[in-house]
């Protein structure tokens, strides 16, 4: 087998860090090659080099036997390398077919008129061939994250990519969906394509890859055949020590009163159909309750309903003993409901405005941020300054626009702001999505601390490892309903996965 792609001695330095340090990597045609490593091990940098986003400081890229230099992502696309990003790059009002064609740089200059039927047919053919079930005429905003990922893969296949890079593709999937994805990956490999599978999950790597290259602190540590490796041996390579799966031990779920109570809540989704169907939930002070489920099963609507952003159609909602009318964010804020939305840049902050503005986004109405109708700009700056210092937010100052902050620092700002209001309940929706390992750690610590101080935390997440590490109780949502509730201590991944896929009906 010829090597489809070979990286020799790739080094990439950023100010203060060597992200890739003489990395060697090689993947053959028709191979599924996993790139395994912790967050921050240099996987993303390496894939950015491979897709032409970065240029290596040293080293060489060899494609199908020829040394190649990429000057732009376009060159990499032309060379048949496509990446499926963790954060999808889709135009949400467009249809699947339109997005697929939009990603195809080859046709853009050539055909002025789009022929939707032809495209839809080709997209349909591809999706059948590779087991990527998605309606070509559906619009992106109507799709779940899992479906959106299929669109991203279709985009790559449509432009006939020979080398596909999948960046942590299972992060948004149920175990069952992940299994389907693995079949797609195998089908693509069988078709002669090279699949580079980036992950930090050992069992996935074992399940799907032919070979594994392990990265650690920017270096390629080893390349081993997946069949010969064990989870333990891979883990040892990856972290350089033995790892253990942490579980939250210090839960005190029997302490507090109920701070959030939903009883038979219904709410409509964006398209008018009910997205929440008779959801009942109870969160006590000092407790972390996790809502597990595959994205698109009503979690976002649940969070929005609690936060007052979405009116409910039936049922009752109580926070800190107060009954809420609902559909009014200000009422929810006043009732002590803090909300960390999944969509950080789009909802949690005004991205173009300063960090200082965003720090007082919810408290600008009261002292000390304002006196009567007037703002106290000096006090606002001081508040922001204090908060940035206390939570170690790395930014040039309170005046920089929020969008310039890294994901982790921005999330610190959001969490700190939400917490500074002295909430009774904290609703956190996918709070670690897109963060690096340090950022994830910070968020987790934050949530644990919040619970330790008596705040009732409702954690909505798709990451079962995260849920198992943090939660006291786990509720699983499927198609808008809570299909099961488990004590975190006794829950297993398999059991939860089954519930997430709607495998077991059970009254909540």
């Amino acid at each position: 087998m010829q090597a489809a792609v070979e990286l020799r001695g790739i080094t990439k330095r950023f100010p203060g860090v060597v992200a890739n340090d003489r990395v060697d990597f090689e993947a053959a045609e028709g191979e599924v090659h996993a790139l395994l490593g912790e967050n921050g091990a240099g996987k993303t940098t390496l894939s950015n080099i491979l897709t032409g986003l970065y240029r290596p400081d040293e080293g060489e890229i060899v494609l199908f036997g020829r040394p190649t230099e990429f000057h732009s992502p376009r060159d990499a696309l032309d060379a048949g390398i496509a990446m499926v990003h963790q954060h999808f790059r889709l135009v949400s009002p467009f249809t699947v077919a339109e997005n697929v064609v939009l990603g195809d740089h080859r046709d853009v200059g050539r055909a002025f008129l789009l022929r939707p039927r032809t495209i839809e047919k080709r997209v349909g053919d591809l999706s059948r061939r590779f087991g990527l079930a998605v309606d070509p005429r559906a619009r992106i905003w109507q799709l779940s994250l899992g479906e959106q990922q299929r669109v991203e893969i279709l985009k790559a296949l449509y432009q006939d990519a020979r080398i596909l890079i999948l960046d942590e593709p299972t992060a948004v999937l149920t175990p069952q969906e992940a299994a389907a994805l693995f079949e797609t990956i195998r089908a693509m490999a069988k078709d002669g394509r090279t699949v580079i599978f980036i992950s930090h999950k050992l069992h996935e790597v074992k399940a799907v890859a032919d070979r594994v290259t392990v990265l650690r602190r920017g270096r390629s540590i080893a390349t081993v055949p997946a069949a010969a490796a064990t989870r333990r041996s891979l883990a040892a390579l990856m972290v350089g020590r033995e790892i253990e799966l942490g579980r939250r031990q210090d839960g005190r779920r029997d302490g507090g009163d109920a701070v959030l109570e939903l009883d038979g809540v219904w709410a409509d989704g964006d398209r008018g159909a009910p997205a929440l169907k008779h959801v009942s939930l109870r969160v006590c002070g000092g407790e972390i309750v996790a809502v597990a489920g595959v994205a698109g099963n009503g979690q976002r609507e649940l969070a929005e309903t609690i936060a007052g952003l979405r009116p409910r159609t039936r049922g009752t909602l109580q926070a800190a003993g107060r009954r809420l009318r609902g559909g009014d964010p200000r009422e929810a804020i006043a009732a002590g409901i803090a909300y960390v939305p999944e969509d950080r840049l789009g909802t949690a902050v005004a991205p173009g405005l300063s960090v200082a503005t965003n720090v007082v986004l919810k408290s600008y109405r009261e002292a000390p941020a304002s006196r009567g109708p007037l703002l106290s700009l000096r006090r606002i700056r001081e508040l922001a300054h204090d908060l940035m210092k206390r939570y170690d937010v790395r930014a040039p100052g309170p005046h920089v626009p929020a969008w310039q902050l890294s994901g982790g620092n921005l999330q610190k700002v959001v969490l700190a702001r939400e917490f500074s209001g002295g909430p009774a309940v904290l609703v956190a929706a996918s709070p670690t999505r897109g963060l690096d390992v340090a950022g994830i750690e910070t968020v987790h610590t934050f949530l644990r601390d919040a619970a330790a101080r008596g705040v009732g935390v409702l954690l909505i997440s798709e990451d079962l490892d995260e849920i198992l590490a943090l939660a006291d109780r786990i509720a699983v949502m499927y198609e808008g309903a809570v299909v099961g509730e488990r004590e975190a201590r006794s829950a297993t991944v398999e059991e939860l996965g089954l519930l997430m896929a709607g495998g077991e009906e059970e009254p909540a």
Partner: protein
Amino acid sequence: MIRIERRLQQRRWLSVAVPLVSIIVAFLVATVILLATHHPPLHSFRRLVDAAFLANGALTETVVSATPLAFTGLAAAVAFRMNLFNIGGEGQLYAGAITGATVGLLLAGAPSPIAIALMMVAGAAGGAVLAAIPGILRAFLSTNEIITSLMLNYVAALVIDYLIFDSHSYLRDTKGFEAKVFPQGKNLPSEATWPNWPIHGLVLPLGFVVAVGLAVVIWGLYARTRFGFEVQVIGDSARAGRYAGMRTRRKILAVMCLSGAIAGLGGASQDGDFRHQLDPRGLTQANYGYTGIVVAALARYNPFAVVLIAFLLGGLQNAGYALQGADFPAGLVGVLQGLILFCVLGGELFVRYRIRFVRRPRKAETPAAEPAS
């Protein structure tokens, strides 16, 4: 290969340097045109500047032209800051002119300060009411305010025409000799004539003073108050505003009405300061509302800059009137004005974007680059 990239950081000095360079470029291009049409460029430019700012009475004329532009510019800036595109400044100015003139006529015999104050209130109210229509539609039905406010401009223009030309309304003069020959509005009583103050040959009308005062108030409102904070947040991200518990609908309506009120005040100033009657022909030909959008854009929605730009643009307009004549066709004046505007607006690109010249990279050569079968 040329690439246009967004600047990560907008540099302060650029916002001064770019317009300056743009104006220089405009004059360079104008030089070529003037040479081609056998006009001495330097002399023409001198006359342009003379007529706008230096000649006897030129500044006064410039301020006269600048006053309505300052109002409509502020009106546009106030709304655009919240990403609320009120294109209806034109119609709201007419509305303010109608209500302002009506109140001015009704208050014949009242003490002048009261008459003038009520004219202002009426003008602002007229503009606000007209702006409230697209405001309500936008806030509660998510209708595109650009289209609705624009369409209302035509409605307002027809109404103002109707009042003078097609009806025997209260506002129309039906008695005077001239009025029998050509329909016109009733002259306002002297109590409703707004005062002005001569300072070293420059006559400062009340309207301009009010516009400058408004600029200060608007700046304070937007930079220092809770209202301004909310407008900023909603303008940047309406979702974030709602998430933070802001009443976004009310804010849309309030800002729309504020914008309309400012334009309407500009209309009342036209009645009281300059025209002393409801003057449909003059108002509808002047395009104050649309020019105000240009003013606001050039000023980057900064209220102080709006006044400054209105002043410069007023000078340019005024110079146009003075320059044209037998030796200098009106069309050429328009070309010069257009050039300056074009260059300054086009130059804006460089404040936010930069241009990089890069060598065209060689194509990566691999077998996979072949088109799919």
